[in-house]
């Protein structure tokens, strides 16, 4: 199954969350999304957004200045 990549690098919160949300709306439960970001705030915001919408955060890979967050779309859609 393919992974949808959301490039939110150089965007400040909450734009990475909004871009993620806009991508997830078009997907089906179980689909995979990877969000690439540079704003450190995403490690709080994207998991919080996933919790309120019932999506699963599978992995957060933090390099020095770049963060990749892997998400699996939950049952309720967005």
């Amino acid at each position, binding site marked *: 199954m393919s992974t949808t990549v959301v490039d939110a690098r150089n965007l400040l919160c909450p734009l990475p969350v909004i871009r993620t949300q806009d991508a997830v709306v078009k997907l089906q439960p179980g689909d995979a999304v990877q969000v690439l970001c540079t704003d450190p705030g995403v490690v*709080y915001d994207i998991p919080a*957004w996933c919790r309120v919408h019932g999506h699963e955060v599978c992995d957060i890979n933090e390099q020095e200045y770049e963060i990749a967050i892997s998400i699996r779309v939950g049952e309720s859609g967005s």
Partner: protein
Amino acid sequence: MPQKPKAVALISGGLDSLLAARVALDQGVHVEGINFYTGFCVEGHTHAIRKQDRARPKRNNALWSAEQLGIKLHIVDIIEEYKDVVINPKHGYGANLNPCLDCKIFMVDKAREWIEEKGFDFIITGEVIGQRPMSQRKDTMPVIARDSGAGDRLVRPLCARNLPATLPETLGWLDRDKLYGFNGRSRKPQMALAEKFGFEDYAQPAGGCCFLTDKQYSVKLSDLWATRGTREYDLDDIMLLKVGRHLRPRPNFKVIVGREEGENRFLEGYRKRFVHMIPTSHTGPLVLLDGEVSADDIELAARLTARFSQGRDAEQVTIEVKQPGGDARSLDVVPLTADEIPAGWYI
């Protein structure tokens, strides 16, 4: 069983919208949150640009509110459409460049479009009569309801008892007796209600929910408009106003000076758009030049950059100057002295 009535609550991240949504939830309404991103919003993360603040835990208060309430939150990008609100507010500005009344009308109007599209029944806001001088007055409440097109589908649970009954009340979806009649600037009733609901650690923004209520920010935005001769702006413009020191040595250009590593890194993202410079002989900031600049302007900006570097007391500092296209050259300059930087340069 009849279907639950459905409402969307405008969630700003502050206490009032959190309480208003909770009051409706407690009456059995299905509530989802909506939060509008204008580009001017004050985010816990705005300071995350600065390296020293990176370690501090941050949160998006609107998302935090949604978690406390156990509701979904839809964050909507309104950056483009919001420009007209900021540039041409029909009802004017507040103390700074905050067009609060037009802003409220615009947001409720967007929420109205949203409920109509999604088949929701009404809109909830945390407004309280008399709480804010511009947008939350007894005479502006009906203006917001009318001009947004929401009419009696707009409910303010915290002050509903001081206002005419709304549709959800007349249809029996909300029991008016269980809504509130808060009035005035006091925060005590909200704090008492927060305690009753067990909400702790909620955000208490001073002034307002966005940078447009900030005096310094408004001065920078006015400067941008005045010197460009147009009020048009893009997201980068308004983000850059939140970062660095801004100085205008001459009418045709200003410099944006990174104050520390995190800001320098953020400003690096704009190298393709601006002439920029950085000291190479000494440690120092990344500096962007915004405006049409001559060779003489570049020399002055380089001397200013040297002043903000570790070489401020050196006889000479080498500055690398790069064009947005990438062409680079080095300049050896004498740093400006403190006296050569008039206070009036600072925006």
